[in-house]
C-alpha cells in the first residue's frame, strides 16, 4: 500500500456501516505509517470557512497529520471551495479521508474532487438481494481468515436477517469460535444460530394458512422477539387470505397468467396459492377473514394484549381450514 500521506481517500455510497469500516481501516493505516501522527476528525456540517486550512497544516508536535471529514454532503459552500483548492495541491505530510453519506446531496463537490489525481475513491454499496448478502457473508468470513460454504452462508442470512452489522457480528463470532482457518459449515452455523429466524409477517401467514401450526406459532414468537409490528402480521394474513378468497372464485381452466391478473397477485405466486387453496372451503375462508379483521382492531388498541390476539388469530385461522 502506498503511503496514505499526500493523498485523499474518498469514501462514497449509501451503506453507513461499510463506510465506517473503510474509514476506520484508513485511520489505522495512517497511524501505522506514522505512529506519532495526530488524526483529527470533524463533521463537514460544522466546518466554518478557514478551519480547513488550519486542519490541513502541519502540526507543531509532529510533521505529519491526518484529517477525517465525515458527512461530506453537509459541507458549506465556502468550505467546499477550500477543500477543492486543497485537493488540487495536497500537502505531502497530510493524509485526508473524506466520507460522503450517499445520495444526491453534495454531488457537485464529489464530481469535482474525482477529477484530482490525488483523490482515490472507494465506493461502498450495501448488498440488495438475499443472494448478494450470501456472497457478502462468504467474503466477510474469508477476510476474517476462514471459509464458509454457500449453504451455511445462506442459512446464516436466513437466521440473522439482512442487517450488515448483525451479519458481520455473526461472522466474527463464528470464526472466533470455530478457529481461524477452519471451514465453517452447516453444522457450526446451526449450532449457534439454529432455530432462530428473521421472520416476516408473510412467513407466519403462509405457515398458518397451510396448516403448519407449530411452525406458525414458533415464527410468531420469533417475530415478537424481533419486534415485528403486530399490524404487519395482521396485514400479511389479510392479504394472504384475500388472494385465496379471490382465487376460490376464479373459474377453472384459466392459465396462471390470466389467474394472476384476475386476482391481482404476481404470476409466480399462483401455483403456491393453488396448493394452499386445497385446504380451504369458502365458509372457512370467511371465518378466517372475520378473525383477522377482529384481530386487526385488537392490535390497534381494541384489545388488551396484541401478542395474545395474534397468537389466537394464528390458532383460529389454522382451525378454520378444511377438516
Amino acid at each position: 500500500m502506498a503511503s496514505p500521506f499526500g493523498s485523499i481517500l474518498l469514501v462514497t455510497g449509501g451503506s453507513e456501516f461499510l463506510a465506517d469500516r473503510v474509514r476506520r481501516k484508513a485511520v489505522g493505516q495512517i497511524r501505522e505509517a506514522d505512529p506519532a501522527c495526530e488524526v483529527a476528525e470533524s463533521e463537514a456540517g460544522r466546518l466554518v470557512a478557514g478551519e480547513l486550512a488550519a486542519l490541513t497544516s502541519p502540526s507543531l508536535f509532529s510533521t505529519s497529520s491526518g484529517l477525517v471529514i465525515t458527512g461530506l454532503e453537509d459541507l458549506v459552500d465556502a468550505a467546499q471551495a477550500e477543500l477543492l483548492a486543497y485537493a488540487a495541491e495536497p500537502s505531502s505530510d497530510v493524509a485526508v479521508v473524506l466520507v460522503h453519506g450517499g445520495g444526491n446531496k453534495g454531488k457537485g463537490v464529489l464530481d469535482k474532487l474525482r477529477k484530482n489525481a490525488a483523490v482515490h475513491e472507494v465506493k461502498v454499496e450495501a448488498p440488495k438481494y438475499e443472494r448478494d448478502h450470501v456472497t457478502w457473508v462468504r467474503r466477510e468470513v474469508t477476510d476474517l481468515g476462514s471459509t464458509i460454504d454457500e449453504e451455511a452462508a445462506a442459512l446464516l442470512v436466513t437466521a440473522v436477517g439482512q442487517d450488515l452489522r448483525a451479519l458481520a457480528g455473526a461472522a466474527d463470532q463464528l470464526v472466533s469460535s470455530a478457529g481461524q482457518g477452519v471451514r465453517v459449515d452447516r453444522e457450526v452455523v446451526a449450532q449457534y444460530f439454529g432455530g432462530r429466524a428473521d421472520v416476516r409477517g408473510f412467513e407466519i401467514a403462509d405457515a398458518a394458512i397451510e396448516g403448519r401450526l407449530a411452525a406458525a406459532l414458533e415464527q410468531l414468537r420469533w417475530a415478537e422477539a424481533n419486534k415485528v409490528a403486530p399490524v404487519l402480521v395482521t396485514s400479511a394474513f389479510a392479504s394472504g387470505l384475500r388472494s385465496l378468497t379471490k382465487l376460490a372464485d376464479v373459474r377453472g381452466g384459466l392459465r396462471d397468467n390470466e389467474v394472476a391478473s384476475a386476482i391481482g397477485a404476481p404470476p409466480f405466486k399462483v401455483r403456491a396459492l393453488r396448493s394452499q387453496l386445497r385446504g380451504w372451503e369458502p365458509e372457512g375462508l370467511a371465518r378466517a377473514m372475520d378473525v383477522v379483521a377482529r384481530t386487526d382492531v385488537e392490535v390497534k388498541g381494541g384489545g388488551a394484549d396484541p401478542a395474545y390476539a395474534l397468537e389466537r388469530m394464528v390458532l383460529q385461522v389454522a382451525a378454520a381450514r378444511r377438516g
Partner: protein
Amino acid sequence: MTVWDELVGQEPVVEVLQRAVAAASSGGSGMTHAWLFTGPPGSGRSNAARAFAAALQCERGTGCGECHSCVTARAGSHPDITLISTQGLSIGTDQAREVVRAASLHPSSGRWQVLVVEDADRLTDQAANALLKAIEEPPPATIWMLCAPAVEDVIVTIRSRCRSVVLRTPPAAAVARLLVERDGIDAQAAREAAQASQGHVGRARALATKDEVRRRRREILDLAGSLRTPGSCLRAAATIHELAADHAKDLADSADAKELADLRAGWGVEERGKRPAGYAGALSALEKEQKRRRTRLSRDAIDGMLLDLLSLQRDVLAVQLGSVQDPGDLVNADVAGEVQTLARLGTAESTLRRVDAILECRESVAANAAPLLCLERMMLALAA
C-alpha cells in the same frame, strides 16, 4: 321570503327564536346572551343560528329577509355577524382568542355583535376554556351562538352557560316541500330524495340534483344483492373502498394543489433553483396535514356509504316485521322491489345480525382499523 323559511320542519324552534327576537327589541324577558344549537347532522343547526342572528339585526325587527341588514346577513357579509368555522380537525386557542377579542367590540352598525361558532364540537378543550369568560359575561350588546351535534360535544362548563335549542330531524315531507319550492325539483323526485336522505337536507338536495351522487348511492345499494361467493364479497368491499378513495381524491386534489401553490408563493419558491432554508420543513408539515385530511375524507365517505347500507337493512327489517304497508314509505322507496326480495330471502333475526355487522364495521373504521379489511369482514357477514 323571510330568514326563517329555510328552516325546514323546525316550527317549534322557530317559534322560540321569534319570541326571543321580539323580547330583544322590546326589552322583555325571553332573550339571553348565549345560545347552544344542537341537532342531528343536516337538520340545519348553523342555518338556525344564522337566521336567528339575521332576525336580531333586521331593520324591521322580524327577520323580513328584504332589508339591507337581512340581505347582507344571508350573504355572510354583515359586519356585526362573525361566523367561526374550520375545515381542519379542530379550532385551537389562537383562533378562540381572536374571537374573544372580536366579542368585546361594540357593534358597528347593527344592534348586536353576534358571534356564531359553527363547529363548537371542534373546539379543543383549551380553546373552549379560553372562551368561557367571554361567554359567561359578554358586553351588553354581544350574543354568542354555538352549534354542535349534541350538547355532550361541548364541555360542561360551556354547556351550563348557554341556553339550549334542540333541532329535530326534519320530517321527510317538509324536506321534500323545500326541495320543490326552493330548488324547483319535481314532487316525486323530491319525495324520494327526502326519504333516502333521512332528514339530512343537504344530502337530500345533492341526491335530487346531482346524477353522480344518485348513481353512487344506487351502486352501493346494488352491492347488497350481489353478495354470493366470498370472492364477490371481497369485490363489493373493494368497490366501496375505491369509491371512497375517489370521493376523497375529488375533494382533496384541488384543495391540495391550491395550498401547495400558496405555500410556494409564501416562501418565494420558483420552479428551478435553490429552496429557501426552512421550506422543506413547512412543505412536509403541509403534506402531513393534507394526508390526514384525505384519510378523514375517505373515512367519512365510507361511513356515509355504510349508512346507506344500514338504511337498506332497516327497510328489509321493516318489511319483514310487517310495519310498513305502503312501499312508498320505505327509506329507499326507489329500490322497493329489491327490498322485498331481500326480505323474503332472510328472517328478521338474520337482518338484525346484518345490522350489527354494519354497525361494528362503522366502529372499527372509526377505531383506525384497516378500512378495506373491516369492509371485507362486514360483506362476508352480510352474505352469511
